[in-house]
């Protein structure tokens, strides 16, 4: 029962076989329903209380109550409204209990008690954007920006944020506390920046959104290969940003990149939850609507920046080459390699070089690919580098070396869903 209701309430999972077919315990269903609505409820609570900690604590309290009652009684028909009402009540109680809070708190209480439990879409949108720009305020360190965004916008637990960013949980807890204290004590404003401020504020927001997308897409620490909710959340944020600033090439580029990657969602995981490589994917399952939108957006981004190409747009162009190929064999590797060359010119990174090496492999064979992969410095700690070497060495018949490289990849924490592909074509993990 709870499971069925969850499936209905999860508006963002239209086509996902993942959530509807996988057996889900009532507790898991409750947890997922909470996560689905976490950030928008939190954003509204922060606006009303002007206190990130208070809002988080109140929502946490509501979530705990939900986890106590939903598995028993079933997830309510309107889980978001349920959580909102309970969280607001908790916030009001906390404000009233706390004698130190006076004066302007009366306004918070009034808002908490009188605003409709389901604010208009535009209000929610502004709440989320305000939260985005507060979390990505330049007076916070980049580390803090990313952590805070994942915690509040992504709705990840402190432990999950810590694992995603590969720092100890205690360090992450301190980082989050310090960031929230600074927001509070230095009065970092909770508002969407002015037009003049926007260009300077945008890059941090975009890299944060893309990190959230990647957290959901690659599920660095998860059993299931995709946490659709985070992917949806990041794409939704990307769309919001695009609507707010339709002329920003980097937003079009990022949104395009995310849509094109997400268009493969249904084909990327099989019925058993195992990852399906790009070469083996059933392209009939790719979302044509997302591909069309993504290709259109990348065109928009490229037209807007003929002089200085945008790195997101370049990556989207590469993804578009895959998306429009009728099958793997007819992929235009020449075009992909050219896009990588442009990308490396504006933003040289070891992972982009690895992607280019994958394309070289497909075009010129494993020996040429291995030369490229071995030439990349600085990826010793990156499991996919070892996985790529393993696969290429295997194809070249150098089995002992391949075995050693696979072990390296696994010991560096390649996630379980991906692990079984060590030794298989790498281009496909894209």
């Amino acid at each position, binding site marked *: 029962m709870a499971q069925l209701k969850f499936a209905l309430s999860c508006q963002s999972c239209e086509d996902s076989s993942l959530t509807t077919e996988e057996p889900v315990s009532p507790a898991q269903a409750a947890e997922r329903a909470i996560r689905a609505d976490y950030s928008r409820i939190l954003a509204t609570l922060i606006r009303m209380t002007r206190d990130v900690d208070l809002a988080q604590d109140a929502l946490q309290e509501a979530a705990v109550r939900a986890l106590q009652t939903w598995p028993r009684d079933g997830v309510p028909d309107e889980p978001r409204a349920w959580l909102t009402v309970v969280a607001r009540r908790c916030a009001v109680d906390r404000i009233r209990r706390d004698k130190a809070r006076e004066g302007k708190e009366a306004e918070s209480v009034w808002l908490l008690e009188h605003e409709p439990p389901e604010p208009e879409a535009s209000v929610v949108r502004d709440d989320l954007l305000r939260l985005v720009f507060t979390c990505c305020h330049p*007076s916070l360190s980049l580390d803090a920006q990313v952590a805070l965004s994942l915690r509040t916008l992504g709705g990840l637990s402190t432990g999950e944020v810590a694992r995603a960013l590969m720092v100890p949980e205690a360090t992450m807890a301190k980082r989050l506390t310090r960031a929230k204290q600074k927001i509070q*004590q*230095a*009065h*970092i*404003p909770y508002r969407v*920046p002015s037009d003049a*401020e926007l260009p300077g504020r945008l890059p941090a927001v975009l890299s944060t959104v893309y990190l959230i997308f990647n957290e959901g897409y690659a599920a660095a620490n998860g059993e299931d290969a995709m946490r659709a909710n985070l992917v949806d959340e990041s794409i939704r944020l990307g769309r919001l940003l695009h609507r707010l600033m339709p002329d920003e090439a980097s937003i079009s580029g990022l949104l395009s990149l995310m849509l094109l990657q997400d268009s493969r969602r249904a084909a990327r995981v099989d019925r058993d939850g195992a990852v399906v490589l790009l070469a083996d994917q059933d392209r009939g399952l790719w979302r044509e609507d997302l591909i069309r939108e993504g290709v259109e957006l990348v065109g928009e981004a490229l037209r807007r920046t003929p002089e200085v190409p945008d790195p997101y747009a370049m990556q989207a162009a590469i993804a578009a080459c895959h998306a429009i190929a009728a099958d793997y064999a007819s992929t235009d590797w020449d075009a992909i390699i050219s896009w990588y060359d442009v990308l490396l010119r504006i933003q040289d990174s070891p992972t982009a070089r690895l992607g280019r090496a994958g394309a070289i492999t497909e075009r010129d064979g494993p020996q040429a690919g291995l030369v490229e992969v071995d030439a990349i410095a600085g990826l010793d700690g990156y499991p996919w580098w070892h996985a790529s070497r393993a696969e290429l060495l295997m194809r070249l018949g150098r089995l002992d070396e391949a075995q050693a490289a696979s072990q390296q990849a696994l010991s560096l924490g390649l996630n379980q869903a991906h692990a079984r592909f060590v030794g298989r074509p790498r281009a496909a993990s894209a």
Partner: protein
Amino acid sequence: MPEYVAIVYSKDVDWSHPDNAAEMAEYGAFNEAAAAVIRGGAALYPTATATTVRVSGGKGGDILSTDGPYAETKEALTGFFILECADLDEAIATAALIPAAWNGAVEVRPVLPIM
């Protein structure tokens, strides 16, 4: 409204010297431009005039004074402003008008409200 202190770090000079008249005039312009939010402040003599004071062995102990500033840095603490602003963005925008922002650095810190 919250208050901030904008701590001015710049080259360590005697602001009263005629050589620095042009820059002092820039500070005068800032004072006028930001009059609405400036609640106080001071320009300081160079760090050569500074004395750093410590008391050894706890309160009431021996007074140890040493010549010079607490920290020797490339840019010195040469002054401060107290600003009353709506939020950190306004404080940052105001601090960006202080000449040291382009000739040195300005550190903006929120003031702890004492009840």
